[in-house]
């Protein structure tokens, strides 16, 4: 696996919100993994939908893109695809580096 950082430029006005926001997204990752184990597709779809909406708003376009893909895969109950996407999301969160400018 690559340990390359993903640099995301965020509006400095949002600086105070970002730690809490990323903390919540890590909680989402844990919930996604549990939902995947339980094949809880409604939950997977709902979290994917939420990531899609919230990620882009804060400036994390990559997060929105993965969220949309999770939502779509959950709708189609594509387990294999969901597994890959959740793994990809985990890597994204680990690699993301916020720069305020």
């Amino acid at each position, binding site marked *: 696996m690559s340990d390359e950082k993903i640099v995301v430029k965020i509006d400095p006005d949002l600086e105070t919100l970002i730690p*809490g926001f990323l903390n919540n997204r890590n909680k989402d990752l844990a919930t996604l993994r549990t939902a995947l184990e339980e094949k809880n597709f409604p939950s997977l779809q709902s979290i994917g939908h939420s990531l899609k909406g919230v990620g882009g*708003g804060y400036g994390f376009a990559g997060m929105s893109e993965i969220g949309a893909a999770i939502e779509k895969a959950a709708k189609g109950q594509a387990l294999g695809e969901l597994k890959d996407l959740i793994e990809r999301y985990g890597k994204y969160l680990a690699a993301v580096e916020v720069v305020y400018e």
Partner: protein
Amino acid sequence: MNKPVESIRILVVDDDNDILLLLDKWLKQEGFEVITVTSAEEALKKLMLARINLVISDLIMQGMSGMQLLAEIHRENPLLPVIMLSGQATIPDAVQATHLGSAAFLTKPAAREDLIGHIKRALRIGSYQTAKGQFGKNIIYKSKAMSELLELAKQVADSDITVFITGATGTGKEVIARAIHDASARSQKSFVAINCGAIPEQLLESELFGHEKGAFTGANTRHEGLFQAAHGGTLFLDEIGDMPLSLQVKLLRVLQDLQVRPVGSTKTYPVDVRIISATHRDLDAAVENGEFREDLFYRLKVVPLAMPNLTERREDIPLLAAHFLRRYAGRNEKPVKHFAPAAMEYLMTAPWPGNIRQLNNVLDLCSTLCKTDTIPLSLVQKAMQDQPGGIQSLKDAKHRFERNYLLGVLRMTSGHVANAARMAGRNRTEFYKLLNQHAIDPAEFRRVKADESEA
């Protein structure tokens, strides 16, 4: 940071706390006061307690949905701007939201500038205010009653909210409907008007929804209905109260599904049409009597506008008279005439059951018949006597004709029913039935003859 916008309070509704935090930040940076809640139910409670200038709501939430919230809000306050924000917006959702009066329908993730732009537009802040002054510029008035009505119409014009206009015959319902269309974002598309009371049921269905070739006898070609003709624009359903019940069901379905199926077709077509409807009837009573569907009534009556009678805006009569006289002078290529003071006084105090339409007809007649520059009182009085109280329905006109006809033949035969029936080409039984329907007593005519003989 932008210049603060004083005391404009925005209620944000979303079940995602991170979205609320983000919007709170963005809006406060623009100088707005912000209240955030995580459900539609909480939003309704806040709306009861606090003065709110605009609502931003998520579409899909636990419990009451954003669409239901929008409908609830506009049931209480149709002028409160609501911006819908959704992660999975579909075109039918967006169309339904705009019909329910949402000021904008945005998809998540919404760009900050986009959202702020829509908020300012909905609140008519800054450059968006200038367009308001143009509303209804061709409507002639100075009365408070019209001023208040036009202010309300102006406020709703810019959204797609469904408007319901009530008012007596000749008060100018279509003029207001057109002004609303002209001031809306749909102004470049068609304004299509239909009088639902003037067309037989089957023809009305075909006119509204269209028909396929061969759908019924005489349908030699395919016909695109008025819903499709008005796609992207406004459909004005005049005299909606006269629409037959069977068609009301079909209209309701179109308004719910936003799709039309032409008569004889298996295909449906999506339509994006703003509906403005109007009636001279008391539809509350019609609903109570089971003559008009309650569900359709409430779908149409989102923003009610009540047209004042001409007698409730008498101060507008001189302005309207001057306007019409200028128009006729231009048409006839003659100098503009004016009214003698007594004639104007008469116009100002007349009962005007036919409202502006009747005023227009009277002035047209006066202008045509008057050979001098000043229209005298006697001519106005004559024109008023010649004018019925507005346009009658065909049924009323037929009834009136039939009654006058019966009175005429009875006068001619001095109340001799057998002779009168013969003249009318009816047998006596039928003729008596007609007399009963009109409550005419032939004996009255015999008595008149006897009185005349004695005299």
